[in-house]
């Protein structure tokens, strides 16, 4: 009983320092993914509670922040799965005609470096804005894909997506991003 109490006290002290050191970073990531203050706060609280309960699973192979981030990403995937049940219909009609040829081929051939700004400046300036114009659901998939170095099959399983739909969402998003950036010129 005494040993158990000592372990508990030690764990509590450790978590006090983790809460102090990592809350802001976790909150920033949670807000970035969910775009809601209250959801981000709830999520960060959940992450620490889960970490506290599952501390035995933390083997110290990665840093505490990496472990906490992984829990956070898993929780966001859970939320995604619950919020967006069912497949979404992805249409490519805006980009390809009925014969599967590119629509507006001329715009596709415009070189980005033929403008006053450099390609880097163009992307830095417009990409973030164009990302914000994507449907929330697609944007969350993109962020989770880039932020986690997971295999596609794992990502799809976490988010409850079929592989076909996952690829279609990435393809459709990228087509839209390219067009959005070019429209900004």
């Amino acid at each position, binding site marked *: 009983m005494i040993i158990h109490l000592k372990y508990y006290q030690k764990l509590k002290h450790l978590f006090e320092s983790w809460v102090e050191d990592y809350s802001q970073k976790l909150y920033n990531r949670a807000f970035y993914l969910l775009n809601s203050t209250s959801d981000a*706060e709830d999520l960060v609280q959940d992450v620490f509670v889960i970490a506290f309960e599952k501390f035995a699973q933390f083997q110290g192979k990665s840093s505490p922040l990496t472990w906490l981030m992984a829990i956070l990403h898993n929780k966001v995937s859970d939320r995604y799965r619950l919020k967006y049940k069912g497949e979404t219909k992805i249409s490519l009609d805006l*980009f390809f005609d009925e014969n*599967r040829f590119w629509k507006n081929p001329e715009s596709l*051939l415009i070189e*980005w470096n033929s403008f006053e700004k450099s390609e880097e400046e163009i992307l830095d300036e417009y990409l973030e804005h164009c990302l914000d114009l994507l449907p929330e659901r697609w944007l969350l998939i993109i962020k989770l894909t880039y932020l986690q170095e997971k295999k596609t099959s794992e990502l799809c399983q976490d988010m409850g997506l079929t592989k076909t739909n996952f690829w279609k969402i990435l393809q459709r998003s990228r087509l839209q991003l*390219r067009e959005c950036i070019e429209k900004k010129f």
Partner: protein
Amino acid sequence: MKKVFYRFVHFFILSCPEATINVEKELLGDLGPIQRLRLKCHIMACKLCRSYLGKTLKIHHTMKDMFINRKQPINRHVVDIDGLKKGILNKIEKR
């Protein structure tokens, strides 16, 4: 004549929508060797998809930099971080 050429390309190699989806798979390292070969052949034959690939690569690298290296934009708003910390510790206390 051009359309006939592209029909030939679509039939024997890949259509442009198929090529663009395979570009995504290639970027995430999920494309098999045969599909990769078909994609390469398509890209060699189709200047539109070649141009698309070039732009997609630039977008991909910028996104990688944005999401992974720069992580995320710095806080756009202020949060009561001390209140949040207290809330977390209260929750842990109750466990």
